[in-house]
C-alpha cells in the first residue's frame, strides 16, 4: 500500500512553471527527505499536498484513493498535517489555543456553544508530555523558546492522529540539543506508522532520519532513492545541478 502517491503534479503561475510533472510515493511509516535549493519548488509541492494550492494538473492519491483538496481543512480530514517553516503560530494566544487553532472544541449548554479551554489545556498537556517538551499549555507563545515553539507546532499535527506529517525546515532555527529532540520526535512519529516528509537544507539532519531522499531542481524531480544508497555529496551535486539525475 502506498500512503501518498503523487502522479504528474504540475503547477504554473502564469508563464512561470513552479513544478513540472512530479511523481512521488510514500509508504506508511516512511521518512522522506525532500531536498532542493531555494525556489526549486519544495514549498509549492508542500502547499499542494497540504491543500493550500490546487495543482494545475496531476493527481494526488491517499491510500490508493484519488483525492482533491480545496482547502487545508480537506487535507487535514485526509490525515495530512504540516509544520510550517515559520511554525504558523499566533504569538498572542496560549500554547493550547495554538495547538487547537481552527479546531477548537466547543461545549454546548442549551443554545450556547462555548470554547472548551479545559479540554484544550488537558489534551495539549498530554501531547507536550508525549513529545517530552517542557511546555505549559496556558503560557503565551510570545514568551516561549524556539524549541517550545517547535513543540507547539508539532503537537498541533498530532491532534488528529495524522497519516502524513510534513515538516518544512523544522531544524533551521533551533539549538543543537533541540535539533536532536526534533529528530527524536520524527523517529517517534515514524514508529507510530506516520509517514513524514522532511523538507530541510541541513544535510546531516536529513540523512540522520530519512529512509528515502527526493531532490527537486527547478521544479523537476531529479532523484528519488533510498538514503542508504545515496550520500550527502551526491545530493549536493543533484541540488546544484553538478549531477543531472540519479
Amino acid at each position, binding site marked *: 500500500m502506498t500512503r501518498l502517491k503523487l502522479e504528474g503534479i504540475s503547477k504554473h503561475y502564469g508563464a512561470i512553471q513552479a513544478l513540472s510533472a512530479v511523481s512521488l510515493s510514500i509508504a506508511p511509516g516512511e521518512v522522506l527527505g525532500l531536498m532542493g535549493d531555494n525556489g526549486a519548488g519544495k514549498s509549492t509541492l508542500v502547499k499542494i499536498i497540504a491543500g493550500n494550492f490546487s495543482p494545475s494538473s496531476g493527481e494526488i492519491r491517499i491510500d490508493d484513493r484519488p483525492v482533491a483538496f480545496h482547502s487545508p481543512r480537506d487535507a487535514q480530514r485526509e490525515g495530512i498535517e504540516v509544520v510550517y517553516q515559520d511554525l504558523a503560530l499566533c504569538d*498572542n494566544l496560549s500554547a493550547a*489555543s495554538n495547538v487547537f487553532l481552527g*479546531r477548537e472544541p466547543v461545549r454546548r449548554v442549551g443554545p450556547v*456553544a462555548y*470554547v472548551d479551554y479545559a479540554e484544550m489545556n488537558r489534551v495539549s498537556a498530554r501531547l507536550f508530555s508525549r513529545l517530552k517538551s517542557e511546555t*505549559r499549555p496556558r503560557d503565551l507563545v510570545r514568551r516561549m523558546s524556539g524549541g517550545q515553539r517547535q513543540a507547539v507546532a508539532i503537537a498541533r499535527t498530532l491532534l488528529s492522529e495524522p497519516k502524513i506529517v510534513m515538516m518544512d525546515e523544522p531544524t533551521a532555527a533551533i539549538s543543537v540539543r533541540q535539533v536532536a529532540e526534533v529528530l527524536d520526535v520524527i523517529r517517534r512519529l515514524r514508529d507510530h506508522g506516520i509517514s513524514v516528509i522532511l523538507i530541510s537544507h541541513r544535510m546531516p539532519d536529513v540523512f540522520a532520519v530519512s529512509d528515502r531522499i527526493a531532490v527537486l531542481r527547478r521544479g523537476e524531480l531529479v532523484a528519488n532513492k533510498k538514503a542508504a544508497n545515496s550520500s550527502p555529496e551526491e545530493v549536493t551535486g543533484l541540488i546544484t545541478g553538478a549531477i543531472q539525475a540519479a
Partner: protein
Amino acid sequence: MTTVDDVISTSEHKNWFSRITSLQSFWVFMAAIVACLALTFLTDSFASERNLFNVARNFAFVAIIAIGMTAVIASGGIDLSVGSSVVLSAMVISITMAAGSPFWLAAALALGASLLVGLLNGLLVAYAGMPAFVVTLGTLSAARSLAMVLSDNKMIWEFGPDHNVLLWVGGGSTLGVPHPLFVLTALAVLMSCIFRWTRWGQHLFAIGGNENAALLTGIPVRRMKVSIYMFSAFTAGLAGILMAGWLGSVTTNLGQGMELTVIAAAVIGGANLAGGEGSALGAVVGALLIEVIRNSLILLGISTFWQGMFIGTFIVVAVAFDRVRHFRS
C-alpha cells in the same frame, strides 16, 4: 527532581493582583477614577446627579462604537467609516419614521443600512485584498454623502407617529440610568463573553496575531473579516439610532470626526493597532476616560481647545505604557 510532566502541569504563579495590574485597562480605569475624585473636590458640579447622568450618556455612544472598533483593530484592521455609518443610520431611521413607518421597522432599516456599509468594507478588504485604511476612508466619504442625498442636507426633527418612542429609546432613562448606558452594558457583557468564549472570538484574535497562521490552519479568514466589519458597522448603526433619539433632531454633520475619538478610546483601552489585542471592557474604559477629560475641562473652565492636547497625550501615554510592558517581559 522535577519531571517534564511536573513542569507542564505547573501554572505560572500569578495572583489576581499582579494579573489585574498587568492590564492596560486597569490603569486607564484608575486614571479615570483619579480624575473623577479630583473633579469631585475641585468642582461643585461634577458629582451632581445631572452631570453624572450626562457623562454616562455621552460616553455610552463612543463606547458602543469603540467595542466594534476593538473587534476590527484586534483582527489587525481599522474602520474609519464608523462616523459616517452613524449619520447614515440616524438619517435612515429619521426619514423612514418621518414618512410614517413604525419605530421597529425604521430601526431595522437603519441597522440594515449600516450593515451594508460594513458588508462593503468587509468584501473589499477580505476578498479584493484592499488595505482597510483606504477602503474605509472611501466609505467614510461615500456613506456621509449618501446621508446628505437622502435628507437633501436638511435637519429632521419630526419622527412621525412613533416620535416619542425614538426620543424615549435614545434620550430617556429608567431607574435614573440613561438608556444608551443599558445598551452599552448589555453589549459590553455580551461581547466580553463572545471575545473570550466563542470560536469567532478566538479566530478574530488569531487573525490579528498571525493572519497567515489563521489561513494555514483553515480558519475562514475572509468570512471572518466580513463579519468583523459588519459588526463594527452594526455598533455604529446602533449608536446612530440612539443619538437620533437623544438629540431629537438629525443633521448631516452628526458623527463627524467621531471615528478618531472611537479609535482613541479603543487604543487607550488596550487595543493594539498591530492586531491581536483588545477587550470590550478596555474599549468602555477608554471611552470613559476620554469623556471624563472632556467634561472636566469644561467644568474647570479650561478652553475646550485643550481637549485634543489631553486626549492626544493619553493616546501616546497608553501606547508607551504598552511598549514598556512588552519590553519588560
